[in-house]
């Protein structure tokens, strides 16, 4: 069973979102998503300072047999990306919620976070998909 931490918010496209104490947003992909994709071999991250609207594709994670777009969960400006993934994309497999984060952004409207799924709703979503 995939790990779905309670304190995070989720998207239907399997990104997780964490609101940091300074109001910034950290984004990654869920444990369930990394299981589906398999061994990561490459990550293409957005450029810092780029701005995205929620739902835009802004990054790509690549395993041997699949490449998956990452959609920006919240509108905002990218402030930093996880440079360590360039040399160790497998971190997404081993530690998706912590050192395997993808990028951070400053949200345009932090209220958008509330519209995302909570852990319970996300668990339901993946249960349905498995069906």
């Amino acid at each position, binding site marked *: 069973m995939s790990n779905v931490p309670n304190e995070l918010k989720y998207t239907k496209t399997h990104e997780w979102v964490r609101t940091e104490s300074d109001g910034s947003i950290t984004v990654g992909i869920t444990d369930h998503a990394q299981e589906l994709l398999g*061994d990561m*071999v*490459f990550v293409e991250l957005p450029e810092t300072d780029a701005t995205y609207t929620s739902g835009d594709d802004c990054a790509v994670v690549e395993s*041997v047999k699949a490449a998956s777009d990452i959609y920006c969960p919240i509108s905002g400006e990218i402030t930093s990306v996880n440079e360590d993934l360039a040399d160790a994309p*497998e971190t997404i497999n081993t530690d998706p919620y912590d050192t395997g984060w993808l990028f951070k952004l400053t949200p345009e409207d932090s209220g958008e976070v509330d519209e995302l799924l909570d852990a319970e709703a996300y668990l339901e979503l993946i249960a349905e998909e498995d069906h």
Partner: protein
Amino acid sequence: MSPEFTSGIKSNQLIFEHSATGRTNGAQMVEDVASASEIPEGLLRKTPPMLPEVSEMDAVRHYTRLSQKNFSIDTQFYPLGSCTMKHNPRACNTLALLPGFLGRHPLAPERFGQGVMACLWELQEILKDVTGMTAVSLSPMAGAQGEFAGVAMIRAYHDANNTSGNKSERSEIICPDAAHGTNPATATMCGYKVREIPTNTDGDIDVEALKEVVGPQTAGIMLTNPSTLGVFDRRIKEIAQIVHDAGGLLYYDGANLNAILGKVKPGDMGFDVIHMNLHKTFSTPHGGGGPGAGPVGVSERLKPFMPIPVVGKDVVGKDEGSFRWLTETDLPQSIGRLSAHMGNTGVLIRAYVYALLLGREGMVRTADYATLNANYLMARLAQAGFDMALPSRRATHEFILTLKRQAKDQGVTAMDFATRLLDYGFHAPTTYFPLIVPECLLIEPTETESKETLDAFADVMKTIQEEADANPELLKDAPYTLPVRRLDDVKAARELNLKYSPAKD
């Protein structure tokens, strides 16, 4: 004898590892004329490229040995779904390699090319009849290029017929979710957005879903029929009507033409444009991944937009009966050229020879026996206890078996079955395509395989199932008997090593 060594050399060495500085292959050395160079020093190469320095025998042995590490149609049954791996008759190759064809410069005047042009013109005529289209251009160099040409023609047609005089507003191409990956990739290359539509549980296109997505924004739909699920879409006329009524055109992906050769013409189904894969239906060699050839056939309304060159035949005047290239001058609305010359001419000659050998009866029989073999193998495998993806349907020239149950119960996947088949001397069927069927094997036996071969394959599949029942781990580690064991794809992608570098001493 150590398996690592054969005839004194390591069996897995690269050609570069046979190399010795200063060893040359004297028979290929022309006179050394370096002093005659008019090229200034600054433009000359400073260090020679690291190419092999080997004798002719070294090279012959090395590449003969390498060839022996391949599966091929000549050596194995190769039931790769969607790829039509049928026998490649030798006459096609021998005749395509005749000096007259091989030595001819592509830009030589037409009077020195009447022989090859006659062959190509007749091939155009044959393909027109087989597809039920008005005209054929042979120039696309592969199926994917044929697809590009087809969708580009659809675009050119809409632009030319836009009453406002501007470019057409039609912006979408519809593809079923089971389509070949080249279809959506092609639509994107032509500047279209892709709309996917689902497939019904019986394998036909969801016509209701189609009705919802068609509209004034629809440029066309890309279809394969028989579909990639190995069944004939029974509502094709209705689909054609819906798309045409919305002003869109129908594109036929000819990957599965072998199933209906001489039985059904795509033109009669309502398609406006089709590409054919001659390396499938017309038995030109796959060559370890090409060259292919992807001629396109068009209906009357797309004829002005065909890719050039096309072979024309003069029917009146002093040159009556002679052949010439139709170019920009003849087809000013053409989408243009796709290759420097006339596509993959040598492949086209092979297909022409094959078509002559088959003749009209042979073509119909091709579809007959391709279909017989697929339905027979499907029945045998069903009897052996395997699950079919679409058990209620007739197979066409191919069918889909799903190992979803085995994956769940025993943890063995389609890939495990596929790699274990290799140990028994069978090439694996296509795995994990179409993407919408879990743990699938897409199996296409082709008409050139005998009943004995199909029986042997079915027996081996049964044996592998028994192995999976007894010891699933055995399958996980397969293959055991090939030049290499299962390869680490993750390492290959993470630690890119795309060329040889000599070890530093």
